[in-house]
């Protein structure tokens, strides 16, 4: 069976179903398929059911479109500090909220959030030096 050359999730799932139907009565115990950064592996369980082990079915761009996120990066070189109350993962952060600050040659640069969202990841570490462009937080909408 031929897989389509351009990546399209619904079409891929259709083709996958078709592929499984074709091989279900065969003696194949394991089937793997890879193309670019996408791929999967199936292994037949006792009782004849394929167990999918999907390596990666989404490109970064697709991941973004499924779960829109917003990355907060350092605008300067300096030392990162959290506010008195460190933000918690999962908390709702409203636009304009200060999530931390960067001290750069005695000047404090507040890290304010441009878009409201839920705090998904904290990459910054208290008191650590940060480069320009260093990833500090990831928020999801």
């Amino acid at each position, binding site marked *: 069976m031929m897989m389509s050359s351009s990546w399209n999730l619904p079409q891929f799932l259709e083709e996958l179903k078709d592929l499984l139907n074709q091989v279900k009565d065969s003696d194949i115990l394991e089937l793997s398929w890879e193309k670019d950064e996408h791929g999967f592996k199936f292994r037949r369980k006792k009782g004849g059911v394929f167990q999918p082990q999907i390596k990666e079915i989404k490109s970064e761009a697709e991941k973004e479109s499924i779960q829109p996120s917003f990355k907060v990066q350092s605008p300067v*070189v300096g030392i990162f500090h959290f506010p008195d109350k460190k933000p918690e993962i999962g908390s709702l952060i409203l636009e304009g909220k200060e999530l931390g600050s960067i001290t*750069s*040659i005695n*000047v404090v640069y507040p890290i304010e959030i441009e878009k409201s969202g839920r705090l998904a990841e904290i990459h910054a570490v208290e008191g650590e*030096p940060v*480069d*320009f*462009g260093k990833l500090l937080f990831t928020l999801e909408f």
Partner: protein
Amino acid sequence: MFRKILIANRGEIAVRVIRACKQIGIPTAAIFSEADQNSLHVKLADQAICIGPPPSIKSYLNVHNIISAALISGADAIHPGYGFLSENPQFAEICGSHHLTFIGPSPEAMSQLGDKAKAREIAHKAGVPIIPGTPVVENIEQALKEAKKIEFPVIIKAAAGGGGKGMRVCFSLKELEKNLPLAQGEAEAAFGDSRVYLEKYLIHPRHIEVQILGDQFGNVIALGERECSLQRKHQKVMEESPSAVINPSTREKIQKMAVRMAQAVHYSGAGTVEFLMEPNGNFYMIEVNARIQVEHPVTEIVTGIDLVIEQISAASGEKLIYKQDQVVIQGHAIECRINAEDSRTFAPSAGTIEKLHWAGGPGIRVDSHLRAGDMIPPFYDSMIGKLIAYGRNRQEALNRLTAALDETEIAGVKTNLAFQRELTRLPAVQKAEIHVTFIEELLKEK
């Protein structure tokens, strides 16, 4: 000595400084823009800090981020390389106020040398000849009187400007009479200021520069001269040391002038005093470059002195370890700047270097930051590297250079290799019959 040096630069000079630091056991911190994150200097340094987006103004000229990077890296000194902030006295002063040693001369020396009028005044006081000039000339009577004093030919220059605007060459009184009102009009149009002055016009001068090294105790030595007459649009194309036309007594004379100039401003570190030399052997100082220069390797090769290490050493407060009579010039070295630019149109060519093979063998040195697969970003200069050949004499150096240029292969971007190959083979270059407008005149003939 320093605890750690931050290199406030990129490209081949950043790599050159890191190599010197490794040699003397000083850890390094590199800075880089987002366009340079995979650069060689980032890989070679002990630490690397991103300081901004690709445009220089936001990264390599971003004083705030550079100082902050130095502070968080724990560096106690900053090497500015050449270009960018290397001759900026304010930057040197800011470094000082943050207890960071600027590896270069003092901000005061830099300010004095950076101001052309001030530098001329210092030279004059130090007995260093400068190109004869006149005060502002108001009218034709005054211009004629002043021109007679400095002798024809003269060039009319705009008091407020530069870049060739309002400049006219006059070979006679008649030409001066005709050109003065025209030059005043051009100066008014270009700078909103019609004031002009006259300067002696030199025909086919050579560019001769003297390398100096100073310490903080007032000691200054000269490390011979370099001839950089092969230039295009004031950009040096090929440089050599020693000059083929400077004999030992002339060398001694210009070295003394260069040392006097440096001592007049209490110069410390590496610097270059640039002169124009007329065909009759007269010298005139044009400016002092208060930094390490691109062409420094030719001096290093013929003197055996590592200028970057000496620069670091002087900045750390050490005394010069060489006395003037210990500087011995041996053999001959010639450098070609290999740039990513079209050999015919000289248009810069950014892109990915797909293939890169540098020549090697006896007497060949290559200073480069690029590897096959590396990018030449469009944001900075187009230098790929410097190919330097050494020989026991000029001819041997030239022969090695010609062969090395032929052997070097670069693909993926356009280069000036073909132009350099042609240039080294020209009879005039072979015989060192060159001057500052040689290349421009050669290109006009084509």
